[in-house]
């Protein structure tokens, strides 16, 4: 079943784990969002720069397992430069896919697609989800409250 192991830890995932993208801090951020996973201990923080409804730049700091780190890194790469509307749509599709529902990803999101392997390890799904849920929550919060407060989400609520 080492092949199943390789399904989860695909080369793309391991590559992101070893050299996470979005590492460099932003000179200026418009809002932040944080998330954690009490049962795993995974923690993520992200700073985001906005310009005209576009996610201009993102900094992701994740302390956790290979899956959560890789997922944060893949996210950073996938959403940078995209309009928030599209970003949220992608994040929602990823959530669906990880939860085993139908979800559609455009072809250029090959790395995001690599997260699919996690589905065979149900307990790890929330590790992969953490970054995406944190981003969705951050954007929602930024839009509704002009980012006055940093949300903190906990993926254990998505646990069952």
């Amino acid at each position, binding site marked *: 079943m080492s092949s*199943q192991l390789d399904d989860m830890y695909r080369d793309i995932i391991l590559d992101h784990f070893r050299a996470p993208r979005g590492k460099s801090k932003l000179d200026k951020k418009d809002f932040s969002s944080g998330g954690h996973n009490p049962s*795993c201990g995974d923690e993520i923080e992200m700073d985001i720069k906005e310009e005209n409804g576009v996610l201009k730049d993102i900094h992701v700091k994740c302390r956790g397992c290979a899956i959560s780190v890789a997922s944060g890194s893949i996210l950073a790469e996938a959403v940078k430069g995209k309009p928030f509307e599209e970003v949220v749509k992608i994040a929602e599709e990823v959530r669906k896919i990880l939860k085993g529902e139908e979800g559609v990803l455009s072809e250029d999101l090959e790395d995001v697609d690599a997260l699919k392997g996690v589905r065979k390890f149900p307990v790890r799904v929330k*590790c992969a989800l953490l970054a995406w849920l944190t981003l969705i929550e951050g954007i929602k919060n930024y839009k509704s409250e002009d980012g006055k407060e940093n949300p903190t989400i906990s993926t254990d609520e998505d646990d069952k």
Partner: protein
Amino acid sequence: MPTKTDKRTTGSGRNDTGIDTNAVRADFPILTREINGHPLVYLDSAASSQKPKAVINSIVDYYENYHSNVHRGLHTLAEKATNAYENVRGRTAQFIGAPHVEEVIFTRGATESINAIASAWGDDNVGEGDEIVITEMEHHANFVPWYALAKRKNAILKKISITTDGQLDLSNLSEIITERTKVVAVSHMSNVLGTINPIKELAQAAHKVGAILVADGAQAVPHMPVNVSELGVDFYAFSSHKMLGPTGVGVLWGKKEILEKMQPFLYGGEMIREVSFEKVTWADLPNKFEAGTPNIADVIGFEAALDYLENLGMDNIRRHEIDVTTYAIEQLSKLKGITIQGPHDATMRGGAISFTDADIHPHDISTFLDSKGIAVRAGHHCAQPLMRAMNIIATARASFYIYNDRKDVDTLCNALTQMRSYFGL
């Protein structure tokens, strides 16, 4: 019965500790299983131990031959079931050196046992401003019930900290256990660090100020000889499923004088003497604390576990685990990136070894090891306050029991080495 165990060993499983691991393994059906194409190496006994055939058989025998509800029944099956069930109480009392049979209360697990103490004893004996002392290394089962009691009663929750090598820091004990202290609740053996705590000393310190000592023995009783009288504790709690027995059974032992004064924590059948709309009176010990139909089959199965352990000898088991733990600490210490938590001297600890890798999260460790057939647990092990005190998120934990030997340690260490290269480190 030829099992896969025969394949995995070249020499004899017997070491000089008096436990023949190969013979033991042959008694555990699950240990012949393959996991992900590899023979199962089960290193998760601190979470729950595997069960010998004798335990499984005794449950089957019970259901096939003499199942009935217990107590009050006048027919043959009821009498047989009652005698068998009550017999285990005596065996359990003897196993932990309890002076009185009726001090042994069967619960559904250590968690329920501790909750019972914290609510039934706690509600009547802890008041506003009183102090409850626990330690930084408690399992949530011996933490949250006391936290909740403190909240309910406006009492103060105080902690004994840990030292950097994972022992209790007793240097300022007299500041922590004071005249206001009503109860000191301590794990006998840590499920994360393996540390064996000085229960006897702590009981003395507690008694000096008129407090009681509650020991969480969930990890200790399975792995070493325990005598509640010698320890001088007031309450002692543990679970069957961590000591070869079935799930769904726990023990609450308490001093007779205390139990007699304590209110029931569950109400219902069997725990009453007389019931009317005007007045209800309680039964005597132990029935007062065993409302409802007990987990008869599993209590009977638990006896088979006690027999199995006594047959091996708790002293031998302890010696065997010191041997394997010593070897494991030695071998793990040699590995790049691996840090072992808790005492490094195996005579001061049990066989639950928590470790971390500098670069790889415990969850990835566990997943990788599983792909090699090795079962270890990873996470906070229901000890978040301890994780915070050690400033780590989680650990991987390999825990050893009577069916593990040095070969299992080798298998683990080899896999950990492969792991680092798999993750490109």
